């Protein structure tokens, strides 16, 4: 019997087989005539294999009901569009994402530019929120020495954040 592969996008018999080698790993996409046409594969110069690989790798796991708690995006939505709903989706759907990264990219860890200022600023704000909560609790529990310490630290962090802001202007 002939090896009858199924189309990665619609499960009809596949007639077009594509191979891409990224970082010496081989990735394959099998498509039926109609899907190949629709994706522009027949024109050797005009399609994005990365996008195809993404769609093709979405099959296996049955879609769960899990929703991103930040934006309400579901696994079904991702299967439909190949796009996420918000930055938080990346941590919510990491199980879905991890196996895909392998076929899509050179590696699975970022080694490029870091938005240094934004990262510092965000961690300062996070620290500030944390300190404010602790201050509240300290006051409620009448731990005044702790409260004074938190207040001092809040002033310090505020100053640091303020300087960052000014440097940006």
């Amino acid at each position: 019997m002939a090896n009858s592969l199924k189309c990665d996008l619609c499960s009809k018999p596949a007639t077009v087989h594509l191979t891409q080698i990224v970082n010496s790993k081989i990735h394959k996409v099998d498509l039926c005539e109609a899907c190949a046409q629709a994706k522009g594969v027949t024109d050797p110069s005009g399609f994005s294999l990365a996008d195809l690989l993404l769609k093709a790798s979405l099959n296996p796991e049955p879609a769960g009901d899990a929703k991103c708690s930040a934006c309400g995006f579901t696994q079904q939505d991702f299967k439909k569009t190949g796009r996420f709903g918000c930055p938080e989706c990346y941590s919510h759907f990491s199980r879905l994402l991890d196996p895909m990264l392998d076929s899509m990219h050179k590696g699975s860890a970022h080694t490029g530019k870091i938005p240094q200022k934004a990262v510092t600023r965000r961690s300062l704000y996070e620290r500030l929120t944390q300190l404010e909560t602790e201050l509240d609790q300290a006051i409620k529990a009448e731990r005044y020495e702790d409260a004074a310490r938190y207040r001092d630290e809040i002033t310090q962090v505020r100053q640091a954040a303020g300087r960052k802001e000014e440097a940006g202007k």
Partner: protein
Amino acid sequence: MKINELIDSPSELTDTAASKSAVVLMTRIRLARNLAAQPFPGWAREAQKKEIRDQCMQAVAALPQMKRGLAIPVESLDELQKQILVERHLISRELCHAKSGSGIVISKDQSCVVMVNEEDHLRIQVLRAGFQFKKVWNTINALDSDLEEHLDFAFSPNLGYLSACPTNLGTGIRASAMMHLPALVISSQMEKVVRAVNQLGMAVRGLFGEGSDASGSIFQISNQTTLGESEEEIIKHLHGVLNTIIEQELNAREKLIETDPNKLFDKIGRAFGILQNGHLLNSGEAMNLLSLIRLGIDFGVFADTQRAVVDRLFIECQPGHVQHAAKGSFDPNQRDVLRASRLRSEFAKLPPPDFTSAAK
């Protein structure tokens, strides 16, 4: 700056004093960026989208690089204006279809563009005529760092810059070069090149015309992977691939002129004849004819100074530019007449081809 003022003022691509690069027409880098804790444009509600747009556009327009440029919501552009921006490689077709809540900010010299609420909140793009990755990267890197002072980007230490599509994860960088590869096309080697480039994890696409057809032997080569390598490594890798393609194209040219110069000169001569005398030219055909003239320039058949003219015409022969120049809306047939007439007058000025200087 108003949109019409921008359209009528010289752009990086239409006013290159001297286009010196024989093979690379244009270098471009874009970065995908998103705001932290905000839904991506494709998932955001209308009101959120507008809010995000206002915040992003304000931050971008305030950058010193964008001073006296254009900042405008996409919905206030008409179809022709959008098309002209697409033909100049300033905005994407996807952005044209954006219903509402999207915007663009373009620098005065039209070399820096930020698309707001396309697939991502921000698509920062810098382009330059010729082969200039270093310059383009330095410019866009600075632009991005300046922007970062005012906007909190969605970033994960592990996954890098978070984008709507996982194919852009990490650096979010797409570096590309627009290459003129007529000899590889004439000698039927393009398919081989496309396959080799794909195997190296890069993408090739035909540039002008409807999305994918390779009119004018112009191809865009770009990186596909964005995670696991630094921006510099990605650019360096692409640079190496491009240099190899340039070498192959130049070899193919040498071979063409050695093996069958008459076949080549016949193509160039006929192209010149049609451009000087044709009365109906669609944009695909015009592109292919101009491509042959450009090849002729590289062979010394026409003066070197003509390259900038041809490069400008590549853009100005697109349907949107033709209609804009004629100040009206025309059907494709009328456009073909207008295009041919424009080309006739350009090529009437050109001295006839000198084939003796090419056949060294």
